[in-house]
């Protein structure tokens, strides 16, 4: 028993965590049974929230991964002056409260520079562009950190061999580094998508919570809870859990296939 205590402890912790989630979900299902709908279930509103969440989070995930690949590669492979500062800035959005970040963005778009950008690209504050920007600010550092780690674990020796065979920097990256990191980048992309999908604080601060306009799934949950519509809140929570489950299943499937 003494020799196997640590694994036993590990299994015990897993069991408690699973139990906690089961009890929480059971509580939600119980609430669903005892809470009557406050008003007619607004199917079209929920559908809008799901579509907006999926569209914005997917766009942000793709865009942030495309930006994170070159920046993660540079952080992994090169030493340069100020690198530690860059790494700290990348980690900031994961540490700072999302509402604080949203407030920073909101204040920025109240400045001359912000107003000029809105003139060029269209309204950002209290619009769908604000959702995308807020989610991007939250997940870009995460994407860069994850993808940098992927490249850290991609053996540099293959790149060196490629160079001895005549490949220049670009060729090494496209023919060797990227294909070898593909699996890890895919996994990072799915995690970033999941994080963007669940983003609330910065989104609601910058884009607001207007139904049929800037109402993502987390915002819809917030609005339902704020109006004490427990029934609709629970439905939205179950939909969120189902989406999260689908994303995690996709992650496992994509890893297995690769």
């Amino acid at each position, binding site marked *: 028993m003494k020799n196997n205590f640590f694994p036993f402890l590990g299994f015990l912790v897993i069991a408690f965590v699973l139990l906690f989630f089961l009890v929480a979900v059971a509580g939600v299902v119980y609430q669903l049974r005892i809470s009557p709908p406050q008003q007619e279930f607004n199917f079209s509103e929920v559908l809008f929230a799901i579509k907006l969440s999926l569209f914005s989070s997917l766009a942000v995930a793709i865009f942030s991964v495309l930006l994170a690949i070159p920046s993660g590669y540079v952080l992994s492979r090169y030493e340069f002056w100020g690198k530690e500062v860059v790494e700290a800035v990348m980690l900031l959005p994961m540490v700072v409260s999302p509402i604080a970040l949203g407030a920073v963005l909101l204040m920025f778009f109240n400045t001359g520079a912000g107003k000029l950008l809105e003139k060029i690209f269209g309204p950002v504050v209290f619009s769908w562009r604000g959702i995308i920007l807020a989610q991007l600010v939250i997940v870009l550092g995460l994407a860069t950190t994850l993808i940098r780690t992927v490249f850290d674990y991609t053996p540099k*020796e293959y790149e060196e*061999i*490629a160079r*001895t*065979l*005549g*490949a220049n920097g670009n060729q090494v990256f496209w*023919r060797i580094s990227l294909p*070898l990191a593909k699996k890890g980048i895919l996994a990072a992309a799915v995690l970033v998508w999941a994080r963007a999908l669940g983003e609330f604080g910065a989104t609601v601060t910058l884009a607001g919570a207007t139904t049929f306009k800037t109402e993502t799934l987390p915002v819809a949950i917030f609005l339902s809870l704020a109006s004490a519509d427990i029934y609709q809140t629970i439905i939205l929570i179950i939909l969120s859990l189902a989406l999260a489950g689908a994303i995690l299943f996709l992650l496992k499937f994509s890893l297995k296939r690769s």
Partner: protein
Amino acid sequence: MLKIENLNFQVKNFFLKDINLEIAEKEYFLLLGPTGSGKTLFLRCVMGLEKYRGKISFHGRGLDSLATEERGIGYLPQNYLLFPHLSVRENILFALEVKNLAEKERRLAEIAELLGIEDLLKRQVERLSGGEKQRVALARTLIAQPRLLLLDEPFAAIDVGLKHYLWFELKKILTRLGTTVIQVTHDIEEAMTLADRVAVMFAGKIYQWGLASEILLHPASLAVVQYLGIKNVFAGKIVAEEKSQLIVNCSGLNFFVPGYPGFSVGQKVFVVIRPQSVKIIKEDVPVRPELKNNIFVGQIVENYFYSDTVSIFVRVGEIVLELKFPTVIYHRYKLCLGKTLKIAPWQPDILLYPGNF
């Protein structure tokens, strides 16, 4: 010709110090040294993967300002590093693809036939054996026809039986292609068997370079002696000089050694004798002049059998001398532990080094 002048490189607390080498065209050159001596670092500097100080030129063309991919130097790493996401065929064609060279199929067919890997072209790299991986990695390197090839312990992961076969196969192929080769190894037998010339490296410094036989018979320093595994190293003092030979007393035993210049009576020295140079004296066989001054009587105290040779250790007074010879001699002379016998080192082979003790 590859010319390396005053190569210096530092990584953390390890230094490559003042390396100077000249390697002739088409030469098969071995860099010999223990693990951690800096051999791989040296190769990385030649390839341009490290920022070194010094000058490296090949056929009169300076390489120092050239990036790795511009140097045209082939490299076969110790663990082959075949690209796992590419097939065997794609691995081999890689150099031709990145340089967009013509006649890919013809060159692939040629190199596959040369190395006997036609059957492997459709396979995936993870299903190859060690010997197959080596040949595929070699094909990948040679298809671009590098004029200089660097091999980093190419036989380290190969079984002994296959290794000895591949030694000669590889050398035959590279000699046929006319490639200049620098091979790095820690295996003394490999170096002495394959090399045109050898350099011995410890702790980032080249201690000796020249013909393999020269290094074996005349190691330049005690460091090289120790690396070659020669155990017959005896501390002593020169007690006399007569008829162009020196008499050295080691723990009560007098050795007659050649009269090397730079040594004088009263000097502290180390006497070094290769185990292969110590002969057994048979009563019914006339004693050669080269042996007669150094005949000792001793007793066998240890013996070790290898595949076809044997090492015996003979105690003579306070000294224990190692002898090495074919196992058949051991049985022919009916040797055994405890047996008393006459031995004598071959005088011209006895080496002398200054002693600071």
